[in-house]
């Protein structure tokens, strides 16, 4: 029953996400948003499979576009998040 197993993962991940995210303080919410955003680019691995399989031309074209878009999301998201957090981190070093 792949469907129910997947559903089980979904439910557990939802509870876990709720538990973790509610512990994150407000001042980190903007970097959290872009970091979470980057994680949603995980759809990239789906795009890779589809783009690389080359089964049909249509799938390849769709896959190509999907890979570009998902990669922008992943790379951009993590970078932006890193740049923001660096500013928090930098001063922490200074404090000590």
């Amino acid at each position, binding site marked *: 029953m792949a*469907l129910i197993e*997947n559903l089980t*993962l*979904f439910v557990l*991940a939802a509870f*876990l*996400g*709720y538990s*973790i*995210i509610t512990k994150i*303080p*407000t*001042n980190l*919410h*903007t*970097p*959290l*948003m*872009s*970091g*979470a*955003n*980057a*994680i*949603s*680019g*995980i*759809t990239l691995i*789906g*795009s*890779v*499979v*589809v*783009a*690389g*399989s*080359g*089964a*049909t031309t*249509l799938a390849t074209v*769709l*896959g*190509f576009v999907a*890979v*570009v*878009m*998902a*990669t*922008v*999301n992943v790379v*951009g998201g*993590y970078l*932006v998040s890193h740049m*923001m957090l660096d*500013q*928090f*981190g930098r*001063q922490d070093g*200074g*404090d000590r």
Partner: protein
Amino acid sequence: MAEGVLAGAPDWLLPLAYLVASVLFIQGLRDMTHPRTATRGNATSAAGMFLAVAVTVLWFEILSPVVLAAALLLGAAIGTWLAVTVETTEMPQLVGLFNGFGGGASALVAGAELTEIFDRDAAATPDVAVAAAIAGIIGSVTFWGSLVAAGKLHGVFRRTIRYRGEHLVKVVLLAVALTAGAFLVLQPGVFGETPLAAWAPSYWVLVAAASVLGVALVVPIGGADMPVVIALLNSYSGLAAATTGFVLDNTVLIIAGTLVGAAGMILTVIMCESMNRSLPNVLFGGWGEEATDDEMDDIYEGEIQSTSPEEVEMLLDTAQRVVIVPGYGMAVAQAQHAVAELAELLEENGVDVEFGIHPVAGRMPGHMNVLLAEADVPYDKMRELEEVNPTFSETDVVIVTGANDVVNPKAKEAEGTPISGMPILNVDEARTVIVNKRSLSPGFSGIPNPLFTLDKTSMLFGDAKQSMQDLVNEYKENH
């Protein structure tokens, strides 16, 4: 069985790698609970992503490695370029844009998978078809909704388009998308044996309808409500990835997507709550138009005292304790460095300076914290509402710069204003209040602010960056 570079590797390697990647995502988010560990958390999460993608590339037979490499490089280049050239004030729209791309990719992947299935002359099982339909709808709405939202935030187009029957249009579009989805699931074969059938045409009808729906949903929402929309679409892009995981039967997509879905949903709810509004009100209420005209000027007529950097400098000269309250205007003006410099100067001269940060100051949760951290303001100077409010009665001067709603006493008194019930920073309890903004025009909520008319309030009109810099210079001259 692995088909690609890793051919011959045991079956369990791929799901195990995905499990490790999921753990890295979870650990990355857990590290986000503290500023000290947050940078590491982001890196941990990125490592998870790298692992998942690398294993996937090596595992599957890539018939067109050049195409794939080109796509990856192109995406990475665009992403890097956007990230490094962005101004801190443009963060919200950039996050929105990235987000849309993630949603769009999910919709395309589901579609490509369907065409592959149909191309093999196989039928999609009902659960795959349902998941694909959901991924298609959510992904398309996310893509187009995010583009519109990012465009509005960026000022590409500011108009809020409202029209009679706009809700009906949305309902019809959703109905079309759902009908196309039903076709996809039931596959009644109306397209027969035509070559068209292999393209999964009902899926693309669904995508088209959902795309228009995405635009139609966001267009009537006021520009100032866009941050909520973006947080919600962030949640959607996660859900789209999770449903794609159901289509591809892939655990890491489901887990990671769901985590993002939860994160976006929680941020959305927090924003709505701290603005004292409901989510349906934000999405369908249509309120939230930014009042740009200065019709308010009459209201304040004759009750406003304005001041100059010189006068403020004199006030600061005798102050023991100063609280700076930043708001959206500080972000717009990029005034954080000037503000930080002012605070440092005052501290050097023995004045006790703190920042009062309202939870929804600016346009994203934590917006002010990010900006001030950029300008090297230490955390322990940034005080939250509950911490700073009790101290205003012992504060000599409050400098409000670019903030409006978050210090509007109307939130306490009147029922029926858009901010009624929202807790505010009680700056009016301080001895003197300096309000720095460019005009008397209202903030996000579009209502006048009685704080400006108080006897203890003086307005320091001007762009936040300019005014703060003037203050710094003035202060330096005299010390």
